């Protein structure tokens, strides 16, 4: 029995064969795999998706600006990746649970993160975006790939938790990660576990072509979507800049998982239009022509064109949506500028759930030390 990398001819880089429903020029095209999951999507929903993408982009721009102005320690822009994030996240229901990486602004937004929560992390005030359980979404994971295992474990938890009716719940866990992450042992182990237990988990790989300065070809000679089936997980490779494809693909994956058929994998082929983070200078490693090429595949423009063509979007609505996004951005800025660093002694809080003799002693000592300053000052 010979297995050959039948897919070797397809490059891991740039677009290649993808499933798509909206072309870069804004045409709605057919796709036999995705259409069954997009048939009921009406213009109102498309406008919603458009609005979420505009919001995401606007907040992202604000984040970059705040960082430039010294208000944030760092920002990881998601410019260009709005469709992959918003489309997939909008297909979820509230009780599903999401484990994102650090670049999923659009996912966090769709999942209900407030502007304040979004900036606290990058300002260095907090390490999570609030309590994960209030919106069933974990904070951004920085250790590349680690969250994929958490999603699998959570999905194993779902399998073990009957609902009120005694039937196992049909919630799903979702892991978001990048093309670079695909190389990490953890991500591969996550696929092994997911397949072994048939866990209701969806892997969403945002292949934005780059892991900092390394093109995806360093990570893989084959399309990343081809990895999953080898572990027994079916996958879809979609145009990640097509929000409808993201939405439809996610519904396909969720439906599988909800029905007990186990894990699924989506590779969203997209592009990181900005720097890796505000600390990065992509001109050191990227060809401007590549950027130009991808500018022509913008995820927002194509939906706008489609909706305008259908008469579902006009200048007024565009302006209204932009104004709404501006309001959110302003909220974020206000939250950022009015952020107050919490009390120093809180650094000792919640290291442990129960009292800890060693740390409690340190806390008392540090409190006494700080008090000493105040006394001196008096």
């Amino acid at each position, binding site marked *: 029995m010979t297995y050959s990398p039948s897919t070797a001819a397809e490059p891991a880089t740039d677009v290649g064969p993808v499933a798509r429903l909206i072309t870069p020029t804004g045409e709605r095209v057919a796709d036999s795999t995705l259409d069954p999951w997009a048939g009921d999507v009406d213009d109102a929903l498309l406008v919603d998706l458009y609005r979420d993408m505009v919001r995401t982009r606007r907040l992202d721009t604000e984040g970059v600006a705040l960082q430039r102005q010294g208000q944030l320690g760092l920002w990881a822009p998601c410019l260009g990746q709005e469709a992959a994030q918003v489309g997939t996240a909008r297909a979820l229901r509230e009780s599903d*649970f999401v484990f994102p990486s650090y670049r999923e602004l659009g996912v966090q937004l769709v999942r209900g993160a407030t502007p304040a929560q979004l900036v606290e992390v990058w300002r260095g005030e*907090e*390490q999570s975006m609030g309590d994960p359980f209030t919106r069933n979404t974990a904070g951004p994971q920085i250790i590349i790939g680690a969250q994929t295992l958490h999603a699998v*474990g959570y999905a194993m*938890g779902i399998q073990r938790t009957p609902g009120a009716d005694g039937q196992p719940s049909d919630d799903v866990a979702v892991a978001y990660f990048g093309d670079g992450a695909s190389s990490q042992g*953890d991500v591969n182990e*996550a696929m092994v576990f997911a397949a072994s237990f048939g866990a209701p988990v969806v892997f969403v790989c945002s292949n934005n072509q780059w892991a900092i300065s390394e093109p995806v070809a360093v990570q893989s000679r084959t399309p990343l979507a081809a990895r999953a089936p080898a572990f027994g997980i079916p996958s879809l490779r979609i145009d990640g800049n097509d929000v409808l494809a993201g939405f439809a693909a996610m519904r396909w994956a969720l439906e599988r998982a909800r029905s007990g058929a186990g894990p699924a994998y989506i590779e969203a082929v997209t592009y990181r239009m900005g720097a890796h983070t505000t600390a990065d200078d992509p001109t050191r490693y990227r060809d401007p022509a590549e950027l130009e090429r991808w500018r022509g595949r913008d995820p927002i423009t194509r939906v706008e064109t489609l909706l305008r063509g259908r008469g579902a979007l006009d200048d007024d609505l565009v302006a209204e949506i932009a104004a709404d996004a501006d309001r959110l951005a302003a909220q974020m800025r206000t939250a950022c500028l009015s952020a107050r660093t919490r009390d120093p002694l809180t650094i000792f809080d*919640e290291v442990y759930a129960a009292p800890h003799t060693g740390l409690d002693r340190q806390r008392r000592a540090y409190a006494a030390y700080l008090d000493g300053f105040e006394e001196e000052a008096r």
Partner: protein
Amino acid sequence: MTELTMARSLNAALHRALADDPTVVVMGEDVGTLGGVFRVTDGLLAAYGKSRVIDTPLAESGIVGAAVGLAFHGFRPVVEIQFDGFIYPAFDQIVCQVAKLHYRTRGAVRMPLTIRVPWAGGVGAAEHHSESPEAYFVHTSGLRVVAVSNPADAHIMLRQAIASDDPVVFFEPKLLYHAKGTVDLETDLADTAPMGLARVVREGVDATIVTYGAQVVTALQAATAAEDDGLSVEVIDLRSLSPVDYDTVAASVRKTGRVVITHEAPGEAGVGAEVAASITERCFDHLEAAPVRVTGHDIPYPPAKLERHHLPDLDRILDAVDRVLDRPHSLSGVQL
């Protein structure tokens, strides 16, 4: 009260935890059908089924990472790492996730994992099967670390570890799996002393030996031998390595003024260093001599046939007691 080996007393604790708390799941390599390579999870699969007792794929990072996800969902995973030397592939998940998630989420996400580790040497095992990695975890803020030394403690402490809302790395000396002891299987956890306390296992006035795990047995033998020599040696079983119960330790050292700390792990930046430094900080004016550490050498674990030269034994501990007492016939008192 029942006479049980440590392996059986641990097994009983797992049975009890699974029976009492539906959120407890046991997971790891070979923990199901086989019942674990040390039979500590024996019978659990049959009793609780495979949704509670999970044979996992062979990947430690995967096991701990999946347990983190289960904890996110409200479960209380009890993870078995098959041998001490196989915990390192899971190190990233333990240090960056298990230890930090409660802190990072300001208490929203609990990580009540128990990570059981068949542990340490003296059993003539192959490479990587006799490691003492406890210091790595003691140095990791956010974890609790315990080590047991007898069946009774093993039973209670495992139940306490599972009940703990904090992650606990739980070290079980392989050398003592078959050691027997009297275990009270009916204990109500509410009636037990908290998990973090050390215990004076033998009282004495001339010197204190501080130790944990299988070395407790060796230390007690040394104390008995020292008695023949007219010395009264106190022995303390730390039980909890993080946090250490310094009240108990300091009380002893203030009494004896002399302390020997012993463990199997290499000494350099080991638990003994922490204990020695902390004792010195707390008891400087009571110390008659510098605390002496008797530990594994700062070498990789040697081949099994040579391990007895690596592990502190009765003679090396006695020698250290002599040294800390400035007694002449100390064998290696030579200052080199």
